[in-house]
């Protein structure tokens, strides 16, 4: 009787230990993944900053003005060519 109980407890103990090992391993694997993802998120943030810089460099008013004048041949209309359309208020 005693022997069977002990064997049963031993089996339970082994099972518990194994599950502890696996969950610990899982936790570490997930943690490594989390770290990696966080690193990536930081990298994306940095890239976002660099892209913002790039965008504002391309969209600099000086460049927009030059391109619209030179490439698109746009002009500011003279006063005679402006007609004011007033909306409901005024």
């Amino acid at each position, binding site marked *: 009787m005693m022997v069977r109980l002990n064997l049963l407890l031993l089996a339970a103990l082994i099972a518990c230990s194994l599950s502890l090992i696996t969950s610990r391993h899982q936790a*570490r694997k997930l*943690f*490594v993944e989390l770290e990696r993802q966080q690193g990536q998120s930081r990298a994306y943030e940095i890239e976002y900053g660099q892209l913002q810089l790039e965008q504002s460099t391309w969209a*600099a008013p000086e460049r927009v003005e030059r391109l619209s004048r030179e490439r698109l041949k746009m*002009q500011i209309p003279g006063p005679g060519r402006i*007609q*004011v359309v007033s909306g409901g208020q005024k």
Partner: protein
Amino acid sequence: MRTPAARGTVAQSALPRLRAPLVFGGLLLLFGVLLARSLYLQSFNNEFLQGQGSSRYSRDLEIPAHRGRILDRFGEPLAISTPVKAIWAWPDKVEASPQQLRSLAAYLEIDPSLLEAKLEHGDDFVYLKKAVAPEVAARVAGLGINGVHDDDEYRRYYPGGEVMSHVLGFTGDGDVGLEGLELAQQPWLGGIPGSRRVIINRRGEVVEDVASIRAPQEGRDLALSIDSRLQYLAFRELKAAVEANKAKAGGLVMLDPRTGEILALVNWPSYNPNNRARATRDRLRNRALTDSFEPGSTLKPFTIATALESGKVGPKSIIDTSPGTLTIGNATIHDAHRSGPLTVEEVIQKSSNVGAAKLALALPPEAMWDTLSGAGFGVPPRTGFPGEVAGRLRPAKSWRPIEQATMAYGHGISVNLVQLARAYTIFATDGELKPVTLFKEAGPVAGRPVLKPEIAREVRHMLEMVVGPGGTAPKAQVIGYRVAGKTGTAHKLEGGNYVNRYVSSFVGFAPVSNPRLLVAVMIDEPSAGQYYGGSVAAPCFSNVMGTALRLLGVAPDAPSNNVILPAEGAEIQEET
């Protein structure tokens, strides 16, 4: 042959009597040694061993925190920090083939001879290059030269370049603010790196977070009141005006008279904050806030407002300004153009020094001081910018009559350009002085009442006459909008004497029916022939104001040409 008796005697005779206790004692002694050793390790050497142990599996990692961005009022980035690498070396540890050194110099874009010179520096640590792009640093690391290392650092970029530089300032080593708002707002913008303890595995990967030693504090973003489109427009026009008039310098401030927000603040000459190699001390100065000048006639409206408020005169009262000079003691005040009797309105419109002086002399000095001080002269404008000056407004008790007379037309008092712009919010609103700020406001801001509303309206009407026919600044007119403003042309003071060099200025606002923008322009020492505020500063004002109003989509309040005409080349040219 074997008998039990015989066996017993053999066993007894084989064991000496002291053997068992001896073995036992020896074992006990060894145990004692072990116990003592472990006690020694546990109690005396504990710390050292613990440290050795944890250094094999735990690490303190820094958690980086970057500096906050600076944004304009619409969220356009004006300053962004991005990580870069600093490449450094221990010269005496560098082992590299000439081939490797050549590629290193090529990657870093420095002269090979300069690189050699740096590496012959001795045994000190030398920076080979700072602010290197991460991709370049990776290529350098790929060369695998011993003794060459890289460090993480941040570099701040300013997409606005010289247009924004005076407002923003710049950062130095460690991304710490050195000038301008970067300096003033360091506690808000600056990030504080954190630190945490982790467990690493054999491959150096972090496998567990043990403790957070210090939480990082990220730098916060800062939203300015600046509109980057208007800022660029103001910069372009100011630069053109300074160059066309061969002037020494210039400044322009644009603000929203409803909130006191500064929409544009530019100076020329300027510098590029991304590359400060050629930035001299002189170029770094934000003149509009850190320099004061004698404003000249732009101060006359305050004299007139005080006179109107005293009740002694009305807008139509007659002041005799003939013969165009006024002698007080041994000093004489001159008018640029001689006129006879003028109404109070015309004193402003024609900018008569004699008229303004006569009006001032009829007033108690305290009343004038109250108006000028109430308009914010003599105290710093408190925009949140470091190093702004207060200008000079002496106490009324110390005024002699000649000083009171010259102060009436803006001499003997000094102001900075932002103060001057702010003071005009009194006339753009119904007598309220708005607090100026460089930071974005959520809605209309309450001001401090300085003038009675009806007097502010009367002066506003006089200021509109200045740009009208017969005024000093017809060139300040803007097509489609009613404009009001005042010119200023002041002799410069040098070594206590007035010299024939000038500061030309114009301060005005539009549309008069509901002022949305207020612009103050100052041109220092124009030397291309013209020097009157009406011909130097007023055209710049008109260009900036007209384009800005159209850009903001402000409804015109003047009957402009509503008829659509065919395109005329000349007209288009003039508009640009």
